[in-house]
């Protein structure tokens, strides 16, 4: 049962039992105010209405799953970072609610550290969220007010938009667009505009330099990124994530074992991993917010919930970037049978994210001219070589499969 058919069943049920009676009652109550385009109750009875409602449910389920994963990613980042720095990281447990209750009741909290701070610390995210929403939003007097408000909206909404675009498996997919990966890359490349906008609008020198660095970074990684993806599109002949994963699973000339794209296109895989790391602005490439050089880079003047959402959006982009890498090169949701495909997909995504977290605390940041050199003089030729290798492989493949005609072992 796919996500969409489940949502369709749910949409039919809710429409019949709840929505149609409610809208009929409302339309009976206010006859002069009925919708001139037609009654909503009638529209919900048709197939189109049910399908739209089902899609609404599907994107909301995918959004909820994505947000749950986001909390886990932030938690993993904190815990692994703490372990690398030889400390424990957040340890807040559910027992600490008792302190909160005592505090609210007016009595002095009994600080029982050994009991209250011995959990896994996932509540720290909740505490941070509450803290951020209760903080003041400061707009600098010299800032461009309109663009200062629009920049975060562009950046955050384009990042949140990424959450439903990739499927977790061929059945758990909120959107099954044939040009899925192109839509993902389009949504990815909106964000530097938001960075540049908010960096310029802050009227702060650090923000300005951060925004300009974001533009330089975009210039250096965007072309090798798309060229390294081109090899995968060529093998699959499609932009559809489902088709790409099926193609990787079908290419089994090596004793029937599926050869995922990262083996024949190893150069492309390396180039793609470097470029997607630059795209999601994680540490060796976090030039726009270089907290050692520029204060907080382009987010210097932002405070409260806006700043918290910037951090959240960066982790969403990290998660989506790892998901794209998994779909393109690591076989997506394919894996041995007893474990469901969604778990396989998330396992691969989390392995990539853990690898990135290790990189974050291991390597220094690179300079602006270095990233331009790297992008144009090293990654671009390498991605073109990868594309030529793929073209060569595709051209000789018919002969190759005739020569190597191996028996089906598995």
């Amino acid at each position, binding site marked *: 049962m796919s996500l969409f058919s489940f949502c369709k069943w749910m949409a039919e049920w809710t429409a019949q039992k709840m929505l149609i009676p409610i809208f009929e009652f409302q339309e009976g109550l206010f006859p002069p105010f009925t919708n001139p385009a037609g009654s909503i109750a009638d529209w919900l009875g048709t197939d189109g209405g049910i399908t739209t409602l089902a899609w609404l449910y599907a994107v909301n389920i995918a959004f909820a799953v994505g947000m749950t994963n986001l909390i886990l990613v932030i938690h993993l980042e904190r815990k692994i970072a703490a372990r690398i720095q030889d400390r424990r990281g957040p340890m807040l447990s559910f027992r600490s609610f008792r302190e909160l209750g005592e505090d609210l009741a007016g009595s002095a909290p009994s600080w029982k550290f050994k009991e209250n701070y011995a959990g896994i610390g996932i509540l720290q995210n909740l505490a941070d969220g509450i803290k951020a929403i209760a903080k003041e939003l400061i707009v600098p007097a010299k800032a461009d007010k309109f663009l200062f408000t629009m920049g975060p909206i562009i950046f*955050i909404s384009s990042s949140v938009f990424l959450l439903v675009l990739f499927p977790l498996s061929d059945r758990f997919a909120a959107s099954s667009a044939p040009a899925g990966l192109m839509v993902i890359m389009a949504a990815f490349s909106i964000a530097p505009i938001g960075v540049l906008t908010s960096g310029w609008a802050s009227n702060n020198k650090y923000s300005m330099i951060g925004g300009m660095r974001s533009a330089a970074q975009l*210039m250096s990684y965007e072309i090798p990124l798309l060229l390294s993806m081109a090899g995968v599109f060529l093998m699959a002949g499609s932009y559809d994530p489902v088709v790409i994963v099926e193609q990787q699973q079908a290419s089994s000339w090596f004793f029937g074992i599926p050869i995922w794209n990262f083996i024949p296109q190893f150069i492309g895989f390396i180039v793609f991993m470097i470029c997607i790391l630059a795209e999601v602005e994680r540490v060796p490439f976090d030039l726009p917010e270089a907290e050692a050089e520029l204060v907080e880079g382009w987010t210097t003047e932002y405070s409260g919930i806006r700043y918290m959402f910037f951090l959240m959006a960066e982790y969403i982009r990290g998660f989506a970037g790892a998901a794209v890498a998994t779909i393109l090169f690591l076989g997506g949701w394919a894996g041995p049978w007893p474990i469901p495909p969604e778990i396989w997909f998330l396992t691969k995504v989390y392995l990539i994210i853990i690898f990135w977290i290790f990189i974050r605390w291991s390597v220094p940041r690179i300079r602006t001219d270095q990233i331009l050199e790297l992008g144009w003089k090293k990654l671009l030729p390498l991605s073109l070589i990868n594309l030529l290798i793929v073209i060569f492989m595709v051209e000789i493949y018919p002969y190759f499969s005739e020569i190597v005609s191996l028996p089906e072992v598995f």
Partner: protein
Amino acid sequence: MLGDEYVPIGIFALIALSFPVMTFFIGRFFRPHNDNALKNSTYECGEVPVGEAHIQFHFQYYMFAILFVVFDLVVVFLILWVQVYLDLAIAAKVVMLLFLLLTLLGLWYAFRKEDVIWI
């Protein structure tokens, strides 16, 4: 209907757009608002801010920016070409590879001159 698969993407684009807008709006009821001239001044590590940041910025890498505009278009053509590659005639493949070769020659020439242009 053509493009049926893109309807959920459209629906979620609206949800994603309204997510930060609604959160910023709802947060208005939870957060304090104490204006203060010192708080609203530009942050410059505690110093009194000097001048504006809306200046003519020295754009050091404009050479790469020009190349980027050209190559972004080349990549758009290339991405469309690779999707239908398996069904193409041999002439279409060769022509596209020649086009790529020509642009790469231009890129090579630009990088040879880059040492002069780079400031």
